[in-house]
């Protein structure tokens, strides 16, 4: 059983801080697990891993969705928010603004559940912060 399959099995049968998880594996060159945290399912979280890390990614917006005249301000805001935002960080990947968290590959499932719920909360708050900058 792969790490993502283990995680899928755990999350499907778990509840964390009042949240249930809805998981959907996405097959491909890189196995990805789509996770929706109940009550915080916008945006969903995509979980993948490398040889050393588990990566949890929430896609917030494509650059094309951001107003040209406010992109610089948004970037400054995100840099400022990076430190206070718990357990997660912002990044730009393939022109997508993302919030993400990284854990050691051998992190226990409880820690991963904490990361997922925290990231889902962060991503939701981040999206609301994005609103004035959207087209």
């Amino acid at each position, binding site marked *: 059983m792969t790490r993502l399959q283990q995680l899928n099995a755990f999350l499907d049968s778990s509840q964390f801080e009042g949240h249930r998880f809805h998981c959907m594996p*996405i097959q*491909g*060159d*890189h196995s*990805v697990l789509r996770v929706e945290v109940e*009550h915080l399912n*916008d*945006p969903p979280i*995509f979980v*993948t*891993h*490398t*040889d*050393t*890390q588990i*990566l949890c*990614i929430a*896609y*917030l*917006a*494509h650059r094309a*969705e951001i107003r040209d005249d406010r992109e610089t301000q948004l970037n400054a805001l995100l840099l400022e928010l990076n430190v206070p935002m718990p357990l997660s960080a912002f*990044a730009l*990947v*393939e022109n*997508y603004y*993302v919030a*993400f968290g*990284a854990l050691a590959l051998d992190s226990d499932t409880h820690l991963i559940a904490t990361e997922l719920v925290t990231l889902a909360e962060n991503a*939701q708050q981040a*999206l*609301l912060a*994005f*609103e004035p900058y*959207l*087209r």
Partner: protein
Amino acid sequence: MLSKLISLLKRSVVEISSAVGDVPETVDQQQDHRLEASIARSQSILSQAETAFRTMESTEQSLVQRLDKLEREQQHLQTQARSALQAGQETQAAVHAQQISECRHQMQSLQTELSEVSAQTARARYQLNRAQSDLGELLRERDMLTTSQTMHQTTLALRDHLAEGTESLTNARASVERIRARQQRAQDQWQAETDLQQSQDTKLQYQQAGIVWDDDSPDAILAQLKKETNHGKP
């Protein structure tokens, strides 16, 4: 190392010809191969450094043991020489003195050798630490590159996967609207629960005062309707 990673990320993934043959190889792949070769080289250097260090350390320990043995032998000979002198056996004492002298010469020679070996051991230890550090840095660099590549490849794969179902990976405006709607529903539900609780509290107070509250009376219905209409307003 970070600057190397930044320069790599800045470069577009343009296919270029491989140095060997005509097989096209991306910049990412070339970088991967170079990094893997560096890691293999560094592992080999580390292995050699470990062997060299172990050999030097073992030689050093062997010399120390030999010196200790000679030191004990010298002490034993001195004891014997003193005993011989006390017994008036000067010839025997002279033989022991000769042996002590040879012992000391051997010790001096060994001490010189030990100094050289200790210096070599220190150099081998430094080389070993450096090889470990170099390998650690390369492994960290590979980890960073792998993470970066995984993020990019995952994003592209998800984008393509969702595009097949005519979905997009993000629609921030729609997401914000759904979040706002969910927050409003939660607020409405909370308000309704609060109103219901207040209504029940009022009813209980009337009952305790001996007043029967008839929810279905025209006055009660009108009051309820007024309350709902002016909800949240004074």
